[in-house]
């Protein structure tokens, strides 16, 4: 059943990404390229939080911290190093800087025995500090104005070939490919032994530790990977907006990421990706008519899902299956009760 669910999830993800890749074929509306690309980038950010929260039980209240570092990495490096070299250096920085910070924060916190909410508060405090640093370090970050005129990335092999993603359409394709790679990597990560051990630690830290699994090592590892992923998402986000300002470290963005993961379904990867995409698209539609309408709708949706669909959108299929099974059972005459394992073994008999 689990394997079937997994294969269905992968098929759904493939369908989603192929559909996303076909958008420029059926539409030439640059605005919607930008909205969908932003939704996909936010989806990658949501998957990074899902790795920590959904799969590992680690509550990082500031996924925007790594995202912001990634965005600034591209903003700063892209402005100083032109061409393919700049893209690669920025990509390295966008992944490595948040990864290093994520690793240090996780190591120090978990080594000291910090638990759940206190770790969450540490991450929250750190992102607020970074926001202030971004505001203060005007020479590097542009201060409250941020960095403007964010460059388009280029990839290729120097001297051999170069691809410049300098149009909304070409950059859109790059984002789709990035999202697909992120999904495949995350899925591979959580499907294997590494993912099983993370899930075990989430279920019972003491049990995992006393079986020989170093909870510190695995938590630091997943925090590092999630931070790197969020950093790359941040880098991909910068050219979409053309500006990187301190709001990328903001609590508002971090809260939104939690909403995407909760609405999509923590521990599913695809759910947070879809939720980020839908909510971003919904936000773009609703803010056109009323700025407050979006907040109102998303607030209500969030409350309804938390109350009535705690598994998020990803659990809708399973819910419907259970409902159908329940109805079928109700319509079918009940067979004689099967013995429990204890009864089958003769327990309770004279």
């Amino acid at each position: 059943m689990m394997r079937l669910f997994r294969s269905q999830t992968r098929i759904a993800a493939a369908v989603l990404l192929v559909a996303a890749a076909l958008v420029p074929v059926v539409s030439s509306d640059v605005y919607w390229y930008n909205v969908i690309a932003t939704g996909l980038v936010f989806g990658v950010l949501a998957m990074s939080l899902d790795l920590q929260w959904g799969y590992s039980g680690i509550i990082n209240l500031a996924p925007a911290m790594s995202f912001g570092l990634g965005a600034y990495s591209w903003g700063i490096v892209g402005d100083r190093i032109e061409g393919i070299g700049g893209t690669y250096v920025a990509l390295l920085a966008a992944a490595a800087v948040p990864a290093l910070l994520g690793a240090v924060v996780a190591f120090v916190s978990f080594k000291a025995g910090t638990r759940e909410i206190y770790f969450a508060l540490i991450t929250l405090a750190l992102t607020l500090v970074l926001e202030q640093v971004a505001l203060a370090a005007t020479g590097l970050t542009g201060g409250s104005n941020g960095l403007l005129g964010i460059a388009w990335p280029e990839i290729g092999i120097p001297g051999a070939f170069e691809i410049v993603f300098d149009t909304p359409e070409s950059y859109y394709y790059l984002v789709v490919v990035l999202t697909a790679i992120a999904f495949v990597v995350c899925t591979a990560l959580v499907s294997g032994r590494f993912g099983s051990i993370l899930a075990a630690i989430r279920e019972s830290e003491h049990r995992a530790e006393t079986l020989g699994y170093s909870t510190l090592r695995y938590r630091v590892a997943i925090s590092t990977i999630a931070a790197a992923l969020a950093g790359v998402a941040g880098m991909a986000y910068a050219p979409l907006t053309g500006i990187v300002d301190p709001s990328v470290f903001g609590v508002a963005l971090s809260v939104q990421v939690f909403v995407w993961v909760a609405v999509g379904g923590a521990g599913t990867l695809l759910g947070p990706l879809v939720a980020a995409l839908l909510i971003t698209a919904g936000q773009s539609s609703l803010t056109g008519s009323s700025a407050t309408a979006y907040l109102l709708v998303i607030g209500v949706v969030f409350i309804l899902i938390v109350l009535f669909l705690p598994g998020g959108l990803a659990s809708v299929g399973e819910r419907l299956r259970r409902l159908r099974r329940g109805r079928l059972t109700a319509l079918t005459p009940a067979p004689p009760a099967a013995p429990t394992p204890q009864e089958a073994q003769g327990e309770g008999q004279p």
Partner: protein
Amino acid sequence: MSEALLEVTGLTRRFGGVAALDDLNFRVRDGETRCIIGPNGAGKTTFLNVVCGLVRPTSGRVTFAGHTMSRVSPSRMAHSGMVRSFQTPTVFGGLSIELNLQLGARRPGAPEGWADRVEHMLAELGMDDRRTQPARDLSHGEKKRLEIGMMITGVPRLLLLDEPTAGMSIRETDEVVDMLRRLCGGMTVVIIEHDMSFVRQIADRVSVFHRGSLLVEGSLEEIQADKRVQDVYLGSGVD
């Protein structure tokens, strides 16, 4: 006489003004099955917590397989071959029964051949047809047996069991006795237990803890006959 696999010397653990362990000396030979009994508050569970690295001792030394284990994490202890169960059955509730066993069988430091051991254990536990079921859906007794199964599949050198039959029916207790007898050959087992019929069936030797110290040690018959034990723990007699 075999070498001591586990030896603790002068082990003390204080919680504020209370000494849960008070200059405890204890040793278990390789291959032995030892039961630890004692009244509530005797320090039995604290002893396991300290030995497996979950709680740091205030003073004293733990030696396992000839190595002094001071300030060693539980995972490092387990890696060296020492695993433990908890009073409350502690399994990975959201994971399948099979995955629980796999995580036990593939623990760091476990020998090769984990897949066969998992299949064997599934059959032993009578859960092979429910292998994909989440462990949280099992009954209390089944969770306890699964937890023990997880540890045995990892082929540890030392198995520490904290009240493995607590809350079990007589039949389930017999199943645990049978399981331990058949599957723990060659392992050293230390069991905290209150059920004296269980102790009688399984123990090579019995240790009695009292107020954080070792009161007396010997065969069950010797323990039953000891006046000190009767005074502090058993009252008029055992069982």
